[in-house]
């Protein structure tokens, strides 16, 4: 296990180096950030002065080397747009995204698994066919459309849920949470539902497929034959075995939800990291973009590793050498 973790950590370092290099290569095609930093009426000479002041006159590999050196010292650089440390900007937005992604994952997991079990018991019932058709919609309707549809129905026509923002938030230490106020929860419902929709559909289909396979197994027949109650058979004997791949997928998707909730956050003006990333792209704020992408890579790598380890713990058949 220790060698396994060590190997994964080494891979992580390589991945982080690779994504940062790719970022720097892409930046060369993203336009010149100095033009806006110097102001609209700056002369070309003044622009060059600003370029020197920020060390952007040096060749790309020197800039990259300096970036890596600073990162090793915990300094991700200052945003060109807001002129404050990039890492701080991102961490400030982390709680919003984390809460949104967590609620979305819980929603997707509970409903996905619940409906999946329900559907698998009577696959040909009309109601269950309807659910399956709906899940197909969940997979194929793009997020931005889903978000706008939900806003139209619940905010504009029915007027019962707020269309944007996080609502009233409370500070608990450094963490600004919206989970403790009614207003905050109200604001969370639509974006979380939008974000959960795709995952829900995937988990539902996964659970259903797993359940249908397991329900035909010999040991389930035995359980029925022993006269156990349906609840025990379904939840204790069948679902438990189905849940192993379901939990794995959920864990993997959680990382992606945190890192790339960009579309949902933009539509609902959710003050999270994805929103920040998008506006940083608009404004060509390169230090924030590269820091964000490295953070996202780190989160996904870490979560993948945790899932792998948990997998070994849940399923004794798996060993990492």
């Amino acid at each position, binding site marked *: 296990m220790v060698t396994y973790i060590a190997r994964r950590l080494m891979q992580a370092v390589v991945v982080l180096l690779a994504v940062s290099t790719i970022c720097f290569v892409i930046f060369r095609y993203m336009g010149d950030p100095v033009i806006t930093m110097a102001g609209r*009426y700056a002369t070309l000479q003044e622009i060059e002065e600003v370029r020197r002041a920020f060390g952007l006159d040096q060749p790309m590999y020197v800039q990259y080397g300096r970036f890596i050196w600073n990162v090793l010292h915990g300094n991700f650089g200052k945003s060109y747009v807001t002129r404050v440390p990039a890492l701080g900007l991102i961490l400030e937005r982390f709680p919003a995204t984390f809460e949104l992604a967590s609620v979305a994952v819980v929603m997707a997991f509970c409903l996905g698994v619940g409906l999946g079990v329900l559907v698998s018991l009577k696959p040909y019932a009309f109601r269950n066919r309807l659910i399956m058709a709906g899940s197909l919609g969940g997979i194929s309707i793009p997020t931005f459309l889903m978000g706008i549809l939900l806003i139209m129905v619940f905010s504009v026509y029915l007027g019962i849920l707020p269309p944007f923002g996080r609502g009233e938030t409370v500070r608990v230490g450094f963490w600004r949470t919206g989970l403790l106020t009614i207003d905050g929860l109200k604001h969370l419902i639509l974006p979380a539902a939008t974000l959960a929709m795709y995952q829900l559909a995937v988990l539902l289909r996964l659970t259903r497929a797993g359940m249908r396979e397991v329900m035909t197994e010999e040991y389930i027949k035995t359980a029925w034959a022993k006269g156990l109650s349906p609840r025990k058979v379904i939840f204790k004997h069948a679902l438990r075995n189905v849940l192993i791949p379901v939990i794995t997928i959920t864990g993997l998707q959680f990382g992606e939800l945190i890192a790339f909730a960009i579309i949902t956050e933009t539509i609902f003006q959710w003050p999270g990291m994805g929103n*920040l990333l998008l506006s940083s792209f608009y404004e060509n704020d390169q230090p924030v973009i590269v820091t964000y992408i490295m953070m996202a890579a780190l989160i996904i790598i870490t979560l993948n590793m945790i899932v792998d380890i948990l997998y070994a713990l849940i399923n004794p058949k798996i060993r990492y050498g």
Partner: protein
Amino acid sequence: MKKLFLSLFAISLVTVFAMAGPVLAASALVVAQDTPPRMMNPHGDDSDAGLQYMANFFDGLLQRKGSGGTLEPALAVRWEHPDLLTWKFYLRKGVKFHNGNSFTAADVKFTFERLGDPEVSEFINTGKSIDSIDIIDDYTVAIKTKTPIPWFANNMHQIFIMDKESTESRDSGDVMVKPIGTGAYKLTEWVKGSYIRMEANEDYWEGAPPIKKVEIRPIRESSTRFAALVSGQVDIVTGVPVELYDKILKNPKLHVVSRPARRSIFLALGNKPGTPMADIRVRKAMYMAINENEIIEKIMRGHAAPAAQVPDPPTIGYNAGIKRLPYDPQAAKKLLKQAGYANGFDITLTGPNDRYVQDAKIAEAVARYLAKVGINAKLDVKPKSIFFPEVTSGKLEFYLIGWFDGTFDMGRTYFKLAHSRDEKIGFGKFNGTAYNNAALDKLLESTADMVDVQQRKKTLQQLNKMAMVDQIVWIPLHYQEDLYATQKGRGIQFQPRPDRWMVYKEIGFK
């Protein structure tokens, strides 16, 4: 598992029942803006989108008031221009910063010195143009510029005065997020990406503003901004997209406010020797090939006014005598034939796709009109962060751009847009096609130290005619229109400003 389900169900029930309840507090104004502030450092962002936030927390030496945009005293009660290089400001007495410090000449000197520091300022150009700042007494300052700048005072509404003591003593990161100014509002809370809350400065030197609390919610996505307004979450929305205008108009609860914007949209032409556009007949043909009325009707949905020149009416240098060339594709074809391009030619039309109202669609339409007279315009639209550096590099052939000048003086604009490129002195920075005309340069340079307003007006008008009519440096398209929407029932008294700034001390409730 079952417990989890139950608790989730309970939470959702509680939430649904808690829906009823007033969203808007009566005394507070809630505004949805299209652009969030970048920071609370008044010199770090020279865009109007950023300056408009600062105008509420800070004051300049002068200010632009109300819907007319007239230049009026603010922290300076009057100013003098004793010689070409010197600007003398007499400061207002008894003004206090939000932290209680008194406003004096030392703060003015500190502010203007700070402008030249690239770490904190985007007003480098203004900062570097200053030679010296003399404190004559606590309430008199004389600023000397390196070269004559006739429009220096016209820009003083954009330079916000900071408190020397607290700016120097605070950590630089704190200065970026907490504004300490003399303005009509004090910042109470800024949660990035969520809201900016401010409260009235009861000791404001102009008298306390009528609205006591303002909450600004920046929402970039226009359909979300629209939903926020329709669902009654906000009182005023800025930047209403033309596509949603009719929908808001039909809604009985909403009120639309529109005003002609200062910004004009135009196409920049080049005259590089050896290219087709070096021939003025070609430039004229391109002008006449474009059906601007149709662009306004179909693409802008009526929310634009045709322009015959780059500056707008209140600008010094606007020439009412300039008229648009008529739309006449037949005449355009004839002109092209005379110039020896009967079969047309290839050209690249560059433009931004995220900067102006319908920018990419306008560019597409222009390319189609040109195709009708045989000119094959290849479209190359891109994000503004890539487009503008290309303009400043001066290597474009033909592009779409928009402009308005905060100083209300065409001189500064023309030095950037029309003067031939000179990297040393910084002329022609936004002359992206490297247009070059010696006569125009000469006339423009003669205005550099022209301070007399009447003379200046006359010369700039002459210059404007030369560029727009005699030389056809640009093809003017239209002036944009700024669209806002408000809640009808709230009794909001709101008059949009020409510069699109939202200055809350100018807004009231009936």
